[in-house]
């Protein structure tokens, strides 16, 4: 089936089998390997991307054909004109990553989360990232990273 998808601002037209999962479409058809696959049951969240700007979606739980006509943002689309997204900067500053495997999905979940809840409490952050697993950090520094990003100038201005 032919599909048209915009990913990180670039339009793509590709021919895919209906059963191709969006995660593999991004990784293999488009070569955007930042989105990762960590489980079979949509628990881990390593595959989270954004649909149409503000809906976090587990891309292992969606078929590429469903994305036809939509816009996807992956982790590769966060940095703009050489400037890191405040969340990327915050994850780095606060040591919110170790092996880095959960990081892209975690970042995309947090982008959507802060759009919906720009001034979250710690408890709300922990609830907000409960769809993403991390085996390395114990989550504490990820929470600190989200707290830092929430106070970044661009984020406060946008909200």
């Amino acid at each position, binding site marked *: 089936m032919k599909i048209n998808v915009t990913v990180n601002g670039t339009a793509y037209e590709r021919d895919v089998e209906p059963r191709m999962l969006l995660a593999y479409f991004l990784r293999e058809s488009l070569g955007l390997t930042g989105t990762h696959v960590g489980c079979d*049951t949509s*628990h881990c969240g390593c595959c*989270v991307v954004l649909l149409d700007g503000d809906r*976090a*979606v*587990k891309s292992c739980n969606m078929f590429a054909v469903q994305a036809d006509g939509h816009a996807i943002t992956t982790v590769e689309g966060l940095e703009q004109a050489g400037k890191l997204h405040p969340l990327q900067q915050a994850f780095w500053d606060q040591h919110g990553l170790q092996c880095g495997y959960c990081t892209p999905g975690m970042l995309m979940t947090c982008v959507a989360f802060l759009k919906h809840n720009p001034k979250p409490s710690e408890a709300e952050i922990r609830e907000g990232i*409960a769809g993403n697993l991390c085996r390395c950090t114990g989550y504490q520094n990820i929470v600190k990273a989200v707290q830092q990003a929430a106070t970044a100038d661009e984020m406060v201005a946008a909200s």
Partner: protein
Amino acid sequence: MFPAQFDYQRARSIDEALSALASRGGDARVLAGGQSLIPAMRLRLARPAVLIDITPIDELSFLRENNGFLCVGAATRDFALEVSPLVASRYPMIADTSVLVADPVVRQTGTLVGSLCHNDPAGDWPVTSLAARAQLVLRSKSGDRTVSIDDFLVDSYTTAVKDGEMVTEVRFPTPDDRTRGSFYKLERKVGDFATASAATRITLKPDGTIAAAGVAIGALGPKALRVSAAEKLLAGAKPSKDLVAAAAREAEKIADPGADNRGSVAYKKAMAGVLVARALRTTFERLGVKGLE
């Protein structure tokens, strides 16, 4: 890990969806959120020959009050309920449920109607829908029919939807100011299926006795169960600690769970009582009834 092959069709209108369903019959599955269906397909437990995607149908994406009901369209995402000020202020039982379903990412794509149609024995929305005495609208080429939630939920993963039919909306009766509800879920972690769940909805008469009650439990049988015996006990009675305890006992009696990693039969039955009691106490508290803690 990878699904078997299937055909995919996008429906741009309800009629298009119904035509597709009519022509492919039992081979076809409706795809809205897909958050239960797609995992089953990846494990090859579900192998539909064709998926009919109804998410492009804007007409099915609504959340509104109409004629004494809160109406939720088939393509309406769980997230819409989670962030709705209307739901938060007037439908506390639905609000409680909306933050406990699956996880916060899955909720951005999953749908309430989809969850009812999937009818997983441990699903959350069936429980709340039973307590609320919800109704579903089923449409086919021959027209609409309204089905009560009790008639809709037939058995594990089985509903009253016939070949060629699809659910277009679910309706929850709008509570008056003497009606409140609450939902409780015991889960081992976020994203786990419920070990046990309970929803209660109480309407009080002006004299403080109970006019009507809805009590349902989940993950405790082949499908969500209405605790009719508890509802009968509650109706006409005055709220009290003993009444709550008696209603909880009825829930324990009717619970028919299977043993699994979440717990033994004995533990789960006990939890049926604990959660119904907690849901009732919270419901009464929301109604301003004091002294039941």
